[in-house]
């Protein structure tokens, strides 16, 4: 990860560094695919199958396209190396940014092409905002994220059906698969991700070990 390389250089010149977390966010397997629930049918144990399904969903959850806006602190990250978002925006009240510099100051209703720039486009969505801090994923293990997703106190009061709905059909979540020119989409499709989440719920919504 390039950011870790840079941070190790920072370490050499005497700067202590913040380590991103126990999950290797942003380090994706070579395949861009998301397997289908049927691919997990061979796992006999229902709980093990459920865990495996969530781990498959984890490819999406820990993908920078999704995790960048689930920061543990007040500042989102950006890019495949998940570097701190520049300009240095903050969460603000309602996770919409600060007065004077809201998320919508730069992020419009649609991805905006800027063909003249190295970043090719600026992400956009009508709902563009940060996940609430209780839904932070960065710095957490997949197991911990899983428990958090199931916990109504930390998931916006959603039951599992609502969780599925959010994952499978929310438009802002869906942006992860349509991130605009110059940006790698999350693995698979939102529909396939929804199927995986549904299959995980149907198998008891078991979580990997934290």
């Amino acid at each position, binding site marked *: 990860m390039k950011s870790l390389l840079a941070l190790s250089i920072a370490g050499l010149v005497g700067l202590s560094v913040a380590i991103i977390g126990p999950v290797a966010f942003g380090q994706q397997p070579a395949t861009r695919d998301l397997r289908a629930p049927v691919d997990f049918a061979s796992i006999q144990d229902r709980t093990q199958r459920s865990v495996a399904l969530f781990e498959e969903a984890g490819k999406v959850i820990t993908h920078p396209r999704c995790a960048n806006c689930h920061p543990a602190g007040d500042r989102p990250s950006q890019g495949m190396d998940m570097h701190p978002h520049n*300009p*240095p*925006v903050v969460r603000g009240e309602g996770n919409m940014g*600060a*007065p*004077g*510099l809201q998320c919508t100051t730069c992020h419009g209703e649609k991805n*905006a092409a800027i063909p003249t720039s190295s970043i090719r486009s600026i992400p956009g969505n009508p709902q563009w905002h940060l996940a609430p801090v209780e839904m932070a994923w960065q710095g957490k293990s997949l197991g911990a994220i899983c428990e958090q997703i199931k916990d109504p106190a930390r998931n916006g009061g959603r039951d599992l059906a609502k969780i599925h709905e959010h994952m499978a059909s929310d438009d802002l979540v869906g942006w992860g698969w349509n991130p605009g020119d110059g940006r790698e989409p999350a693995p698979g499709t939102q529909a396939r991700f929804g199927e995986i989440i549904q299959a995980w719920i149907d198998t008891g919504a078991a979580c990997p070990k934290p």
Partner: protein
Amino acid sequence: MRISVNGQAHDLDVDPETPLLWALRDEIGLTGTKFGCGMAQCGACMVHVDGMPIRSCVTPVSALEGRDIVTIEGISGKEADAVRQAWVALDVSQCGYCQSGQIMSAVALLSVEPKPDDKAINDGMAGNICRCATYPKIRAAIHAAAKSLEG
């Protein structure tokens, strides 16, 4: 395509992808809004759309039909007056190129947060780069504008 800028309607015959910035500058002739980076990093192109701060360099004109666009040339109201007066009184500008954007951000900040502390100024103005580093005066001018709005 028709857009409304500073209360005036303008018919545009341009590629719908054209960023508002270039429509303002090249088509309408409002050059107070500046180009600095073209990728929403520096804030020189800040305008208000329906009262909210927006980066005109990454906002296509196609997204703006029926919206109310206000530029540095047309910004009005008590926050705008207070900010401009403070900017002049404190001689904030050096090269001056970023200051239209700084002022648009400051007005947006004060419209929501009439008495910002230093952290609120840091957060709200973080998107506006000033290569001359007039930041101490920008901060002082925002505090001064906030104070004048109290009275």
